[in-house]
């Protein structure tokens, strides 16, 4: 087991790309997905806002490691490392949790996903019926390749959009199951 972990770590070390430090292409991409859940918005929001426990509702996340560190201005900032079951990981910074509007915002600092400059938000709103919530997940990001065409395979807009679409679709489907099952 230790050997396998070491191997994974090694492969991650090679494939990790710096995110925000360098330039990106000029056309940002967007993925926006919504799901309706038969549970109270308060219950759904309690799950969604729990930044350190994403593995409890997202089927693709093996583990979540939460950290708090001071930034350049001396403010305490929350970070998490998500390790994916399929391999790879992302290191994310919590931007804000707003209970009034039931919105959480975060961004990716580094990671193995084929994209850069990723910012996302998840918002819970009251659904059409009393015991119904709507969750909207929105991500804004750029493709990995930063220069003019030809764009190398696996670094184009479509690859970046697909990676996030897969994460959002599988995540929201399972969030629905988890939230509806929870008492």
């Amino acid at each position: 087991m230790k050997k396998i972990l070491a191997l994974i770590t090694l492969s991650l070390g090679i494939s990790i790309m710096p995110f925000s430090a360098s330039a990106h292409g000029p056309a940002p991409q967007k993925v926006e997905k919504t799901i309706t859940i038969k549970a109270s918005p308060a219950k759904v929001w309690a799950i969604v806002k729990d930044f350190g426990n994403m593995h409890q509702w997202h089927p693709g996340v093996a583990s979540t490691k939460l950290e708090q560190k001071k930034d350049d201005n001396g403010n305490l900032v929350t970070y998490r490392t998500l390790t994916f079951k399929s391999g790879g990981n992302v290191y994310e910074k919590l931007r804000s949790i707003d209970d009034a509007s039931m919105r959480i915002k975060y961004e990716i600092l580094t990671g193995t996903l084929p994209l850069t400059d990723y910012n996302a938000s998840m918002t819970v709103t009251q659904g059409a019926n009393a015991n119904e919530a709507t969750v909207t997940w929105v991500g804004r990001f750029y493709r990995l390749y930063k220069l003019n065409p030809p764009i190398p395979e696996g670094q184009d807009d479509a690859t970046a959009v697909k990676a996030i679409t897969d994460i959002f679709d599988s995540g929201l489907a399972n969030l629905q199951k988890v939230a509806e099952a929870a008492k």
Partner: protein
Amino acid sequence: MKTLSIKFIKIIQFIAVVLACLPFSAYAASAEPIQGSFAYITNQGDDTVSVIDTAKNQVTSTIKVSKAPVGVAVSAKLHRAYISNVESQEISIIDTQNNNVIETLKINGSPVGLALSPDSKTLYVADWFANKVLAINTQHTDYVREVNVGDAPAGLTVSPNGRWLYVANRDSNDIAIISTKTLKINKRIKVGKHPFGILISISGRLLVSVNVKEDNVSIIDTKTYAQQKIKVGYHPYCAAMTNDEKTLYVTNTQDDNVTVIDVESRKVIGTIEVGSTPEGVSIDQANHRAYVANWGSNNISVIDTTTNQLITTIKTGEKSRAFGQFILHE
């Protein structure tokens, strides 16, 4: 590099367009000209431009352009809107009297920022990847000059007297000041990290750069180059100033709001919640309204600049950007 044959074709096209327009323009001159103020909003996601009549605050026309439009520049003198399409590497030229695309220019690069000289004789185009700015003659669009600038040139603006072109070089963290006569860099000014949007005040006295990765704006005196930085929201993109030079509006893409700055005191006097991921902002000076293009929510937030209140929201196209001065007063 343009080949001779392309030039020749362009000249033939130009003659053809002139000939085709001759009898028509005689007719058009007698027809009622379009008047009023209009916002030309680029929609990156569906390759269109939404035209908003600001008197009605309604989209009155939707124009198909090329792939991933971002930048915009407008000219009342020429009755033209110029649109940069970064993915297809083209400039779409719109006749604002009928809102038809009348010409599409191929650019050997990735056009992003656009600006017109005050006399509308020159269109400046920032080429994001090749690190240069093109100067295109608006009467003869195959006459193109160019100047090498800093890394990833983004926002462009021209001084009201037409003498200076200012270029925000996003990845060099500076502004290049270029003589429009010689097309040579006269000076470079260090600003904050990743300047994207840029503007010059109506008197030419103040220059503003929006520094994305430093979350602030630089206000620069164009005579002394004295610079002050003012903290705004997260990942700001663009700014617009009222013609009395009293108020500055800055879009904060990752905070979904607009920071209002009192220019005289250099203080933040308000924050206005708008749509999601606001990018471009321009002011309809005649009607005292700021128009904010929201990339995330595919709409425009309209702010009353006398009260700093949100008046209305107008649905546009997918991923509205509107990078540049996009209000046309016909």
